[in-house]
């Protein structure tokens, strides 16, 4: 390993080493400045990946513009979540060093998944952050809902890991290599063994991205997990999974079945997610179902991959992540001993907590795809790609299910601003600086990308070429 390799790998090393450091620090001084330390470590990783454009290729891992972009994006999400979690965990009595350490571990795993060049490291990366989430989802040990969610996630997750591993094994058996580049470069007609493996890989990835039919865990886990964890699960974990899927897709070559499978995943995710979200009375469940629908749009962009859909998918996901962070962030800061998750409990809160209300409202407009929030630009990119690829049916189904989605997103805005407050007129809790930042940043990002998305689009063109 040369010094350049070391420089390039440094963000990952900071995260992985930081994880151990935080665990040790917690053992020496329990309840010390662990969250501050963790934030500093993530910021260090962020700054490093931003300021030092080192690239490197090693066996199994390659630090490329692609992986650096995703690393930056995932670490920003992780940082936001940590800012939210500090206050939230204090209020809900989640103590201990394992929480921040596990988040660092998850971020390291995600970073590895985005930088993988063979299936083994890809699998390791994916499963390490999923493993971290098994812990994080159930981190509030006295909560029965959290326990239930943790168990459901564990069972579903191990099943999907098994499917993914089986798929990779079959692909290896068929082609005799695990290197992604070699798998992508062969021009052989796909043989049945390879296709079986490919389909299993796709199914495993559908689980990670909550695509129908592998979405059933989503609502329960999102609801049962502590809100900051849900925020991370619904944004960074989806981002890393998309990056992994983008690394895997080239191995299918020109196999047309891939298009058909993605087509079905997109269609059913858009329909099922948006229709099921209609009837939810719990905000976290609603957001969970809606995220199934949102991932449907990402899949729609992937269907249109030959027509510039990959760029649209990543663009869409970044915007979706900003909205997810703001929405789950709003729930986090309003949760005291209990999660503030029943929709009706938010009545009139837009006036009581203007920033929280505004963040949630902008997130809803963004998810609904209404300008000037960024979600509109995301939908614009996705539908442009879909129409360019000639996917008329899917585009029309998508736009009509987006109309359905407008209804349930607006319902939240209605509750926030148009229904009389149910709460006594006691002054709202003042948010601390970290919470303000964690809500403001995604909101501002949503508005900026909604008005001027050109820089991000240009960056994506560069890293995906």
């Amino acid at each position, binding site marked *: 390993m040369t010094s350049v390799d070391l420089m390039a790998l440094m963000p990952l090393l900071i995260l992985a080493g930081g994880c151990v450091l935080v665990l040790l620090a917690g053992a020496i001084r329990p309840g010390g400045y662990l969250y501050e330390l963790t934030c500093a470590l993530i910021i260090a990783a962020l700054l490093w990946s931003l300021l030092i454009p080192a690239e490197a290729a090693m066996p199994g891992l390659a630090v490329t513009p692609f992986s650096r972009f995703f690393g930056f994006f995932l670490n920003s999400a992780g940082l936001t979540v940590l800012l939210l979690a500090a206050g939230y965990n204090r209020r809900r009595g989640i103590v201990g060093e394992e929480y921040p350490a596990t988040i660092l571990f998850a971020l390291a795993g995600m970073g590895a998944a985005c930088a993988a060049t063979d299936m083994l490291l890809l699998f390791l990366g994916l499963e390490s952050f999923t493993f971290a989430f098994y812990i994080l989802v159930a981190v509030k040990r006295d909560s029965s809902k959290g326990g239930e969610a943790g168990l459901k996630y564990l069972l579903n997750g191990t099943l999907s890991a098994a499917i993914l591993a089986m798929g990779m094994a079959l692909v290896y058996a068929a082609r005799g290599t695990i290197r992604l580049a070699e798998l992508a470069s062969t021009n052989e007609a796909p043989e049945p063994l390879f296709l079986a493996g490919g389909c299993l890989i796709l199914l495993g990835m559908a689980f990670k991205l909550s695509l129908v039919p592998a979405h059933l865990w989503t609502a329960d886990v999102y609801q049962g997990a502590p809100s900051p964890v849900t925020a991370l699960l619904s944004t960074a974990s989806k981002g890393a999974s998309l990056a992994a899927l983008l690394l895997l897709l080239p191995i299918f070559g020109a196999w047309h079945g891939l298009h058909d499978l993605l087509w079905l995943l997109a269609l059913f995710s858009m329909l099922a997610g948006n229709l099921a979200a209609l009837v939810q009375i719990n905000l976290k469940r609603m957001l969970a179902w809606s995220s199934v629908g949102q991932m449907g749009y990402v899949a729609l962009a992937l269907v249109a991959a030959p027509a510039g859909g990959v760029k649209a998918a990543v663009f869409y996901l970044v915007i979706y992540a900003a909205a997810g962070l703001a929405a789950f962030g709003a729930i986090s800061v309003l949760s005291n001993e209990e999660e503030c998750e029943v929709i009706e409990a938010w009545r009139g809160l837009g006036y009581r907590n203007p920033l929280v209300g505004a963040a949630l409202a902008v997130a809803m407009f963004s998810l609904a795809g209404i300008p000037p929030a960024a979600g*509109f630009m995301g939908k614009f990119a996705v539908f442009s790609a879909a129409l360019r690829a000639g996917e008329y049916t899917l585009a029309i189904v998508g736009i009509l299910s987006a109309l359905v989605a407008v209804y349930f997103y*607006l319902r939240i805005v*209605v509750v926030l601003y148009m229904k009389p407050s149910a709460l006594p007129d006691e002054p709202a809790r003042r948010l601390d600086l970290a919470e303000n930042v964690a809500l403001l940043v995604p909101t501002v990002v949503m508005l900026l990308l909604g008005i001027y998305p050109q820089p991000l689009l240009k960056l994506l063109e560069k890293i995906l070429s």
Partner: protein
Amino acid sequence: MLADCPLLTILIFLPLAGSLLLLPLWGREAAARSVAFVVAAGELALTGWLYGSWRGLSRVPAKLPGYLLLEDAPWIPSFGIRYTLGLDGISLLMVMLTSFTFCVALAVSWNAIKERAVLFLTLLLVMESGIMGVFLSLDLALFYLFWEIMLIPMFFLIGIWGHGRKIYSTIKFFLFTMFGSLLMLLAIIALHLLHAKQSGEATFALNELLHTQLPFATQLWLFAAFFLAFAIKFPLFPLHTWLPDAHTDAPTAGSVVLAGLLLKTGSYGLIRFGYPLFPLAAHALTPLVYTLALLGIFYASLVAFAQEDMKRLIAYSSIGHMGYVAIGIAAWSPVALSGSILQMANHGVTTGALFCLIGMLDERAHTREIAAFGGLWGKIPLWSFFFLIFSLTSMGVPGLNSFIGEFLILAGTIRQSPLVVVLSFVGIILPLIYMVRLVQEVVFQGERQPLALSDLSLREIAILGALLLLDLWVGVHPAPLLDMIHLPVQLLTGGAA
């Protein structure tokens, strides 16, 4: 000098900047009201100045024929979206109507909105920016953006300060308009892609897309999506059902803006984008537009006759009046189109005034039931005077503005389709019936309930007086406005300039 100053950008963003000025005034309502009104009045002055100088501007050779001012800058090159604004006679008329209507809306809600007044003012100013953008955009994607943005403030306006079933109404309003808009978005993107395939240039610019050669079937599909979006806003029968609810439950300022401006964005879109982009499809669907418009005229008039709520009655009358605008557009002859465009402004003034009047009465009596009133002529003569005049306008009495618009529409349509004109003439009688009933029951007749009512205040007289002046001006001397829209109408209908 003029070319250097981005007047159109200022026109769009001045209200938005004004709404930011209101933020430090949160909680100080009197000051915020004054600031908001000054901003709106400044906008009105700017459009007034543009009106005063349009002849001078038209002598400067323009890059696009017919346009007085143009601005163009790259915005999102990756999507091919540009920031292109243009002002021609038609947009100028609409922009004047917009800035005037917002002054009226601010003035009429001066005392009516007490709760969260600063938020109310902020939303009104944001909406003014959005609507200005709709009337000035020449890039389809930019147009769509403004088209959506203007909905959000209205959604809040009805939902927060409305009456009755306000939440139901505002969601219905939003979903109806979104339904049409989303399909139009797909059509816009499809048109963009077809154009890119033909010319190799990825653009949403209207003047480029106008040159796209489209087969008839494609035109029909794309036009159907555009038409749906615009017909919902218009609203054309049977897509009108959101309108009575939204108009009735909105606060007065909301109703004034809805009737005065949001409906006009539909007709404006059809004139600016729908017909010019897809001439073959538009021509083929003309009978359908005629039919829907006539059905709307008859149906809305009959339903209006049965209304007990004055505001709902006026809301239904809007559907009828906009039906004439649709007929004039469908005829697509210079005279009829001029009539339609003029009638858009007229309807904004007249219906806006009627909604103001009913709002003022509602503030005093806390009811809008026709059955609650009677003999108002003796009790509040000033109010009754204005109500009578604007009702007469709504009936299309000569000397007042609606007559001019309707006359031009029918005169311009008669060569295209005499049958439609004959039926429309029958339709013109119908407002007479329901408006006469309304005026007779409310203004004349004996008093039915002892209501203690005070007559109009100076502020209210000023609002209505300004509206009346416009009404009379267009009714007696419409020539300057017709001159202003003459060239763009000729260019649109393919006549010689």
